[in-house]
């Protein structure tokens, strides 16, 4: 029953193939010796290592060094001379009484709520749409293309269009909610005040659910149709089939999907920045814009770096815990599946 989702099955097939290719083995009999004594593998890895150093590790180390310095406009020209502050930047960031720490905490909590809602809804819409699209019906191709449109549009253009639609006096959202449906007593503000939170969630979900849809749709292709046929013969309804076959089979896909969506959403900069500009309302003060503001708008690069390092640590811990928890589940999952099959 678990042919497509059991990773162990591909191993023997691979080695079997390699054994079968006798010619290749004869042509390169000395490879094991070279691997043992030579540097070829290291040389082959070198470009990747160099790029990894250049693109990730060195900027990260520079960022960490900056976070221990009092780097303001006075030293931007020669930041190596900025005075060391030990852990001052970190102390200020996590001291929740004065405005800076308090604002960072508020921003962090807002971002957590935003991420949970946006990822949850994106996932839900993505799965629902992908399952619906499994059935063959007229216009399915067209509908799929329409669903993927938000994913294909340039982010800036799309979000700025949302910003126009959310305008209080001339925006389409209020035109529909207030003028046409009469759901509100007076036109609401969406880009300032508390509603800004819902505005940013709506745009984020609109932007990321097609990705969930795409990934889940690909995952669904791997579930053998016989499972559904067998379940249908046994009398399982659609809902039971989704619960007992679709969702468990999608588990590995969902694990990666939710993690990627979480990381993208938590770090999302474009959506809030284009929607609200450099000073987002308190209710939608997402952490990426908040850190940008600390670094590039108030010119306190040291403090911005410290906040970035804290964010990185948080994301690393969450990712590690998530991977640890989800890497344990397959055994449980396969047990569940076996009991379901039984």
């Amino acid at each position, binding site marked *: 029953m678990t042919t497509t989702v059991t990773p162990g099955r591909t191993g023997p097939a691979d080695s079997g193939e390699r054994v079968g290719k006798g010619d290749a083995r004869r042509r390169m009999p000395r490879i094991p010796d070279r691997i043992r*004594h*030579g*540097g*070829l593998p*290291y*040389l082959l890895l*070198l470009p990747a290592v*160099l790029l990894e*150093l*250049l693109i990730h590790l*060195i900027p990260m180390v*520079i960022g960490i060094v900056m976070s221990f310095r009092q780097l303001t*406009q*006075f030293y*931007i*020209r*020669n*930041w*190596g001379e900025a005075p060391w502050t030990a852990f001052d930047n970190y102390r*200020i960031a996590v001291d929740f009484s*004065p*405005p*800076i720490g308090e*604002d960072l905490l508020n921003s962090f909590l807002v971002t957590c709520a935003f991420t949970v809602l946006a990822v949850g809804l994106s996932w839900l819409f993505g799965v629902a749409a992908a399952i619906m699209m499994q059935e063959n019906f007229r216009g399915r191709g067209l509908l799929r293309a329409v669903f993927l449109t938000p994913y294909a549009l340039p982010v800036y253009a799309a979000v700025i269009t949302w910003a126009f639609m959310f*305008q*209080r*006096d001339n925006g389409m959202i209020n035109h529909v909610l207030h003028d046409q449906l009469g759901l509100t007593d007076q*036109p609401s*503000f969406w*880009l*300032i*005040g508390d509603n800004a939170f819902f505005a940013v969630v709506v745009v984020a979900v609109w932007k990321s659910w097609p990705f969930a849809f795409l990934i889940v749709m690909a995952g669904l292709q791997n579930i053998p149709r016989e499972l559904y046929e067998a379940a249908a013969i046994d009398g399982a309804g659609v809902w039971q089939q989704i619960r007992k076959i679709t969702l468990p089979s999608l588990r590995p896909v969902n694990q990666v999907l939710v993690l990627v969506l979480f990381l993208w959403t938590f770090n999302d900069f474009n959506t809030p920045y284009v929607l609200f*500009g*450099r*000073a987002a*309302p*308190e209710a939608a003060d997402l952490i990426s814009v908040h850190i940008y*503001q600390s670094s*590039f*708008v*108030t*010119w*306190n690069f040291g*403090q911005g770096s410290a906040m970035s390092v804290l964010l990185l640590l948080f994301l690393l811990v969450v990712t590690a815990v998530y991977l640890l928890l989800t890497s344990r589940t397959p055994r449980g999952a396969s047990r569940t599946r076996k009991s379901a099959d039984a």
Partner: protein
Amino acid sequence: MRTIRAAAAVTVISALVAISGCGGGSSTDGSGSNESPKTLTYWASNQGPNIEADKKILTPELKKFEKETGIKVKLEVIPWSDLLNRILAATSSGQGPDVLNIGNTWSASLQATGALLPWDQKNFDAIGGRDRFVDSAVASAGAEGKDPAAVPLYSLAYALYYNKKMFADAGISQPPATWDQLVADGKKISKGGKWALGAEGGNLANNIHQVFVLAKQHNADFFDSAGKPTFTSDGAVAAVKQYVDFMAKDKIVAPGNAEYAQNQSLQDFARGKTAMVLWQAAASTFAAQGMKPADWGVAPVPVQQGAPGTGANTNSMVAGINIAVFNNTKNVDGAKKFVKFMTSDAEQKLLNKTYGSIPPVTAAQQDPAFAAPDLKVLRDTLSTSAAPLPQVPTESQFETTVGTAVKELWADAAAGRPVTTASVKERLNKAQQQMQQ
């Protein structure tokens, strides 16, 4: 095999050396050299309706300069929203243009980075002398007591633009000269979907410009003489409250203005939805929106009482654009020649006429073109009743923190939440604490 290993080691080491060479920014402290005397790069700020228009306006002038001096100028027009970040990036990498435009409110902040050539006596002499320029404009090009970090290029001031027909319809014959009159007139106009005054509540810089002037009128400033923030002084609090009260208490600003940040208040003005706006040189924008010059009038920005002047009767900040030279230019002499060209009487007349601004060069101001009624108001304001924003290194932070505080207060007013002296003080106190961290 040994060769491969050696090659790999050399590659890694040279890559690391190259990378470490990139960090740390430039430590050049000199004032440029003349290694490339025949070329210059120029970052112009976007002044016209769009970037293409700026290129069209500036390119013939640059050709003229090339013909005169043999120096080729490579032009890049940069939108306002990107300019400061581009300058910061250039400052930290040391890879900037030779000559650039800066907003004059950033002068002291950029001066503090040490990236701009200081305009001492010798450098000013090279462009014809400091006394060719209007005093208040030079004062807005750097911190007091220091050599300016830039030279004034285009000057602007705020004025009160009003819709003549809307005034006539409400039975008002004269534009208001004091805020009390403005509120009284405003109450007559603000009915039936029409509003008296436009505001850009979401635009942090505009918020700062308005509350700075009101604070001056309350005999207050946002910084003390030592450059320390004094955001919570009674005068500063009263100024911010007075500004937001135009919506919260007086009800002469439409609530929707609280989220405006893209000059929507000018569109409302052009469409006859709003009767007044406080703006810098708005004529070309109104013309672009289909308004005829006869439809609107220009008056000095109101004061608390009396007539505009200095001190408590200041009625504008000194707005405008400066031209600066990047300290590590490879053509310092050419850069100075270019600044001299751009600030020459002839170019000043031509460029300021085109952009609708006022020349900061006294001789060029005498051109009859700058005596048109609207420009005369701006010119008189600049010379008699405008003050530069605080020239402190933390000006950029001030704009963000106080500008955001005012934005949040607009949001409170728009949502019908009370705006009180205590709530204004609380927001400003938070802004001040952010400055001190």
